[in-house]
């Protein structure tokens, strides 16, 4: 019989691997997670739109009003052209700013969602580990149960065989009066009889009778 089984401790490699992974995760959470949140906040601000609109305005003014002249002041169409050009340029700036903002926001969300997806698959992995542990436990219990049953069967079988063997023993017993022929005596399930027809009872007699420590059949 062996000693009771103990849970297998993690190997050095397993411990080191888990420790490094945890340290890397902590580092990531400390240094990279805030960056993503910062990017999220930036993507929601109107900074890009303001910069692009400023640039568009400057470009328009640079192109249409950087060389003023007397002749230009006499051109009645000029003011309308500047206004129209400015509207067009600002529209382009707005569209580009919206494109940049949408791109930034979807990048942030994609990354965040990617991390959440990793978390989900991690959960599935953790659940898988839990399941395999549960299965191992169930299998272990099943093995113990089978071993108990088998031991009981062996003991029961041996006892039954011995009991029946005991019943089959016979001996010739001299009548207590000393008169008459010896009478045949049969053993019972729990006690055999020796050749003299005496019941074998008590631990010492039974050991002697079984011959476990050498021949002998005394009562």
């Amino acid at each position: 019989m062996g000693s009771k089984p103990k849970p297998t401790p993690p190997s050095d490699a397993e411990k080191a691997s888990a420790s490094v992974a945890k340290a890397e995760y902590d580092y990531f959470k400390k240094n990279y997670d805030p960056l993503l949140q910062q990017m999220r906040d930036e993507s929601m601000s109107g900074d890009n739109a303001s910069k692009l609109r400023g640039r568009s305005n400057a470009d328009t003014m640079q192109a249409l009003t950087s060389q003023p002249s007397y002749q230009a002041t006499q051109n009645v169409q000029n003011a309308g052209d500047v206004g129209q050009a400015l509207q067009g340029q600002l529209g382009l700036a707005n569209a580009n700013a919206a494109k940049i903002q949408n791109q930034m926001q979807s990048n942030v969300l994609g990354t965040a969602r990617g991390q959440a997806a990793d978390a989900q698959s991690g959960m599935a992995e953790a659940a898988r580990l839990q399941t395999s542990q549960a299965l191992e436990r169930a299998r272990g219990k099943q093995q113990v149960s089978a071993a108990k049953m088998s031991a009981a069967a062996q003991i029961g079988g041996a006892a039954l065989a011995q009991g029946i063997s005991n019943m089959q023993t016979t001996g010739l017993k001299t009548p207590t009066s000393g008169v008459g022929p010896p009478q045949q005596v049969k053993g019972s399930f729990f006690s055999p009889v020796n050749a003299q027809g005496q019941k074998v009872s008590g631990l010492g007699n039974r050991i002697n009778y079984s011959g476990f420590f050498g021949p002998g059949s005394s009562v």
Partner: protein
Amino acid sequence: MSDLIEVSDPDKVYADITRGEYEDYVKNYRAFEEEMLEKAQNDTSLIDQAREDSKAATKLSKGIAARSASRYGAQLTPAQLEAQKNALRTANTLGSIQAVADAKIAQKEANQGLLSDLINIGQGVNRSSQNQLGSAAANATARKNAYEQAKAQHKAQTYATIGSLGAAAIMAFAF
């Protein structure tokens, strides 16, 4: 000297991290995502901005023309002033119509682009969820199968025990 912290129960740490990551997403990005979904379907900021810009551009170009004229001491005749006013009004109206029309196209393009990005992200999330659910279902099936198998083994063991007891009895009686 390394400052690594020993992880004695990686299973639990793993579960804690994965749960924490999901909670982190809910806390920091769920509202952001919902805002984006709303924006991708109903945003009109480009069109609104184009309307505002039209008004501002008219005022601005009027001011430019006035400053330029005063810089050269130029005087426009009433007829020229009227022509300039008309030209400005026409340019503004046409410019405004064009700017708003362009903004509508740009808005639609921006919203559709954002929506398609979001749908792609959503598809990824959906795929992960399906995989996770599939994995959970497979685990549950494996557990159920193992239980059924264990039950069958137990029954077989019981019959084998009864059989061996019976066989022992028969053999004992026979001899």
